[in-house]
């Protein structure tokens, strides 16, 4: 077990954002949280990472768990002059060859001397992913990592993510809107709407009546016929 959240509840003036949500991430999991806007997905990630403490419920981390966290939409304030190179090693001691490995993996070598506030949305996402990887994490937690990208950028990003998953054999927990793109690579989907509506393998979940009631019949039919071409074998996970 890497992280276990038990009965996480978060209240806001507008009502319950999270209602008794329990979620467990094991080693080598690839888990995607889907759900409509305002369903509490970001809040749940923040609770699991430890950025927020829930009003009730419990979050347990594996001892000395290292998390690479990528927050939702980084806005870089131009008042702070900071190069990408400096950002990657900020508050972090990282060996030069490990850094260059990550830089190559995320394809940001030509960005290193650019200023953070001059990056485009897609460039920021890759740099943020590199920063998350720089901590050599046991678990990547990504909050809508592809949201600022165009469709081909999204495809690229998810391919990159899948490559990282297979090369490193580390766990990934991700919030995403891009159901159709995520279905192919993720091993497990959790559908969240303030509470966990349903969860399971991506192919099975699209037939779940709760899923259909939230996302509509059309989407689930679309998902059902979406071809899942796997040109590789997934490592069989255990402990679901």
């Amino acid at each position, binding site marked *: 077990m890497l992280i276990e959240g038990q009965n996480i509840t978060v209240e806001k003036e507008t009502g319950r954002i999270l209602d008794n949500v329990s979620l467990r991430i094991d080693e080598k999991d690839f888990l995607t949280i889907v759900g409509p806007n305002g369903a509490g997905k970001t809040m749940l990630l923040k609770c699991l990472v430890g950025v927020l403490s829930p009003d009730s419920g419990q979050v347990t981390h594996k001892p000395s768990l290292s998390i690479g966290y990528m927050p939702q939409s980084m806005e870089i304030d131009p008042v702070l002059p900071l190069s990408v190179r400096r950002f990657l090693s900020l*508050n972090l001691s990282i060996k030069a060859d490990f850094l260059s490995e990550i830089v190559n993996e995320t394809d940001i070598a030509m960005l290193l001397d650019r200023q953070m506030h001059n990056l485009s949305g897609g460039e920021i996402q890759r740099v943020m992913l590199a920063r998350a990887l720089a901590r050599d994490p046991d678990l990547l937690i990504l909050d809508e990592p592809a949201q600022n990208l165009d469709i081909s950028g999204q495809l690229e990003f998810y391919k990159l993510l899948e490559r990282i998953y297979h090369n490193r054999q580390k766990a990934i927990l991700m919030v995403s809107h891009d159901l159709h793109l995520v279905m192919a690579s993720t091993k497990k989907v959790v559908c969240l709407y303030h509470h966990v509506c349903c969860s399971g393998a991506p192919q099975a979940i699209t037939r779940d009546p709760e899923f259909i009631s939230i996302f509509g019949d059309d989407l689930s039919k679309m998902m059902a016929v979406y071809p899942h071409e796997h040109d590789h074998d997934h490592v069989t996970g255990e402990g679901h």
Partner: protein
Amino acid sequence: MSALIAPLVLAVIAGPVGCLIIWRRMAYFGDAIAHSALLGVALGLFIGFAPNIGVALICAIFAVLLVYLQHRRKLSIDTLLGILAHGALAFGLLLVFWSALETGHDTHNGANHNIDPHTLLEIYLLGSLENISMNQNIILIVGASLIAIILKLIWEPLILMTLNIDLARAEGVPTLRLQYIMMGIMTALVVMGLQITGVLFITSLLIMPAAAARQISTTPEKMILWAIIFAFSGVLTGYLASHEAHLPPGPSIVSALTIIFIISLLISVFLRRKNPRI
């Protein structure tokens, strides 16, 4: 010569602290704390202890209050800061006049007994050139060194937190503690600088060199170096000019800093033409 020690020490430490203030968008906070300082002076005079202690006390209370209020969101933070700052200023001004009237009648009350309230206000609002004692110089140097050491220790997490607070928190940075430390440093600096630039100009001494430095810097450290250089030159010219022409030091220093800022702006336009990536 020794009259220059305090202003120049202040200028050097204003460099890094000023940069942090503009990165973390705390200029309003600095202003509110500075304005509350006058209330501290007045309370000190009124009750009869050293104004510096009154200032430190009131500023510390305001700083804690401000961090606390940051998390309440019925009124926006700039509204709250405006109320606190000018409320404190108004009460402070009234109290200065009142205590001046009181002490005017009371001849037992030591050195302050015949200070005209207008002179007193001029000193606290606009700064004074009055000789600063060796003891005060030493306190200033020790204080500035302490601030420099603390900043050095928390520098990297502080920058990370400035960039993105969620990311910093996720990576284990104690963000709330750092916020309080920053407030403490800013309060200390306001108290230290009050006598030299006055209530109205202390924030400008902090943010103007940093803002000028931003125009021509590509790393946080370069920005700090330039901020120190600008603060140093601005304070030196302003202070000397005010000495020669018998003008209050606060406005003289800030006028010099304003000219420096305008020059840096022009330089940055020129640089950007050559290299648009800065």
